[in-house]
């Protein structure tokens, strides 16, 4: 076999090989990985938000409560509220697309403290004389003690869209030295419809619920004072004695 023949044989062998390569069935695993990679990458990007813990802020002030009617009456709001939540270690949870709990949401400050502070602030803006500790200075002054029963934010995944829901439950007990004892429960839900559970969507849901419950609690205390107009006012005789 001369050199030309050898070359021809090798070329034919190589061609056969190439042909046989073409005939070989494609490697399904390799193709699956190739096509699945972008999907896997997108899934990782999307789910990364759902597996990391996050914080929600509880602002120390809310504007635009627009409450009035305090008329200088005295009220004591005990700060902080008693915290009797069933879940105390976190303020909410994150979920994946299958509605499974994947990460924690924490509050920047204890909600039992911040809600009591916000209520005291709202009543002060409504014209009340507010104390946050101690006892009322006069016998008809009201003392309000609160119990935080629930504070939780979580995504609720629907068929086509989801929403971020925040539940807050507080029980208030109002007492006065002259015999008043009244109780009332407040439950609000903050809802933010969203396609994704971003930090800002969680925050909006929490803000809505906090603002709503503070407004409701303040309005209820004002209505209690209006029901008994003598409450929280210094008796005229006492004023006379003080003046003389």
């Amino acid at each position, binding site marked *: 076999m001369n050199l030309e023949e050898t070359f021809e044989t090798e070329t034919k062998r190589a061609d056969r090989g190439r042909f046989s390569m073409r005939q070989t069935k494609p490697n399904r695993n390799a193709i699956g990985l190739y096509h699945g990679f972008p999907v896997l990458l997108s899934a990782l990007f999307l789910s990364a938000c759902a597996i990391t813990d996050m914080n929600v802020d509880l602002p120390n002030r809310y504007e635009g409560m627009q409450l009035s009617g305090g008329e200088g009456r005295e009220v004591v709001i005990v700060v902080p509220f008693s915290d009797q939540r069933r879940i105390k270690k976190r303020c909410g949870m994150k979920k994946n697309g*299958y509605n*499974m709990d994947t990460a924690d949401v924490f509050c920047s400050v204890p909600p039992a403290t911040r809600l009591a502070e916000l209520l005291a602030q709202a009543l002060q803006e409504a014209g009340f004389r507010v104390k946050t500790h101690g006892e009322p200075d006069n016998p008809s002054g009201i003392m309000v003690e609160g119990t935080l029963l629930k504070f939780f934010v*979580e995504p*609720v*995944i629907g068929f086509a869209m989801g929403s971020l829901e925040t539940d807050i*439950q507080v029980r208030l007990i109002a007492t006065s030295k002259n015999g008043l004892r*009244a109780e009332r429960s407040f439950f609000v839900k903050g809802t933010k419809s969203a396609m994704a559970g971003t930090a800002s969507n969680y925050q909006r849901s929490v803000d809505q619920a906090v603002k709503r419950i503070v407004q409701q609690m303040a309005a209820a205390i004002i*209505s209690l004072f209006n029901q008994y107009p003598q409450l929280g006012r210094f008796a005229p*005789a006492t004023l006379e004695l003080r003046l003389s």
Partner: protein
Amino acid sequence: MKRLLSFLILSALITGCARHVVVKPEEVGRLNSPDWILQSEPKPIRRAE
């Protein structure tokens, strides 16, 4: 088809078993007191003589 069916059944099972902490919106009204529950009313304060 078989795979899709298995996926759907699995998804439904996982979703069905998911734990919710928040309540349904229709339950909010039940958990809210419409007014103050009075256990005792304030007595009128006697004026100093």
